[in-house]
């Protein structure tokens, strides 16, 4: 019998640096790259964390918001915005009628959404998600983003719960800004096939600016 192990979309870029690997939401993910003190120092300056392992659920259609609401998930009232739709679960409204639901480290909402039955649902359609997803934090994060994105991503130019779909390092990506354990961080999602490329670009610039890759443990300590 063949056993398939789900790996992060950026797994191939990790092989060279041999991070400590663990399982989260059924996916192999980097728990740490370097010693605790080094990662903590990077977190202060500029840290890139792979969170592709978080569970996700995509849905679109004119009745998508109604269906999510019926499952007890709150949805943003305006386009291109996000809310915490359930405890530890983000809900992003991508345009008018498409939603991305993502459990955070302790979130549980996506598990229940897998009960979605297309045959008995009209006006809502499940969207397969295969994102690479990252968290960027640290005092140099805006310097990194200014090298990769043409938009002004400073607080003053971006509503606090706004969703931005733009290009980052030349590829399509979705961004939000959120507060994580009191720290302002940026979230980036891109198609999984671009994951390795974006990870390489982000970590290379992070290292130039004095930071680096940080594993899941340090990020959520």
């Amino acid at each position, binding site marked *: 019998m063949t056993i398939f192990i789900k790996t992060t979309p950026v797994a191939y870029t990790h092989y060279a640096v041999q991070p400590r690997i663990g399982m989260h939401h059924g996916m192999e993910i980097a728990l740490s790259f370097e010693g605790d003190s080094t990662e903590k120092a990077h977190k202060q300056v500029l840290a890139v964390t792979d969170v592709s392992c978080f569970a996700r659920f995509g849905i679109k259609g004119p009745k998508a918001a109604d269906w999510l609401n019926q499952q007890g998930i709150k949805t943003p009232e305006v*386009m291109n915005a996000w809310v915490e739709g359930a405890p530890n679960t983000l809900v992003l409204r*991508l*345009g008018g009628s498409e939603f991305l639901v993502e459990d955070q480290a302790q979130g549980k909402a996506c598990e229940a959404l897998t009960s979605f039955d297309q045959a008995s649902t009209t006006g809502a359609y499940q969207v397969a998600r295969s994102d690479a997803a990252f968290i960027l934090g640290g005092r140099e994060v805006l310097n990194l983003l200014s090298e990769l994105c043409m938009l002004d991503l400073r607080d003053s130019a971006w509503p606090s719960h706004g969703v931005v*779909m733009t290009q980052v390092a030349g590829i*399509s990506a979705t961004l939000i800004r959120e507060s994580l354990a009191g720290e302002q961080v940026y979230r980036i999602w891109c198609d999984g096939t671009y994951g390795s490329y974006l990870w390489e670009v982000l970590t290379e610039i992070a290292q130039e600016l004095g930071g680096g890759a940080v594993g899941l443990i340090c990020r959520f300590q």
Partner: protein
Amino acid sequence: MKLLNCPMNGVRPLSEFLFGGEFREMPNPDASTDLEWASYVHYRDNAPGIKKEWWYHSPSGTWFIAERNTLTDEVLATYLHGNSPVSKVKEPS
């Protein structure tokens, strides 16, 4: 930097968009003559002027209509198909 106003996402660099060709109203395929249908499919006069065009914002997957003066490259309005023109954005000089 040239800019274009996506009706769903706001003003973005032109590099985020793809051109989707001229928008033209399709005649009823069941009621049109062969000449009308052939004209719709094949005929383009290519005269410069204000044209309706399909444009695509690739990061969000949004198709929309832009009214563009093909002589001056000035975009007069952008809007979702089926909606009225609501935004008139001029590129900064």
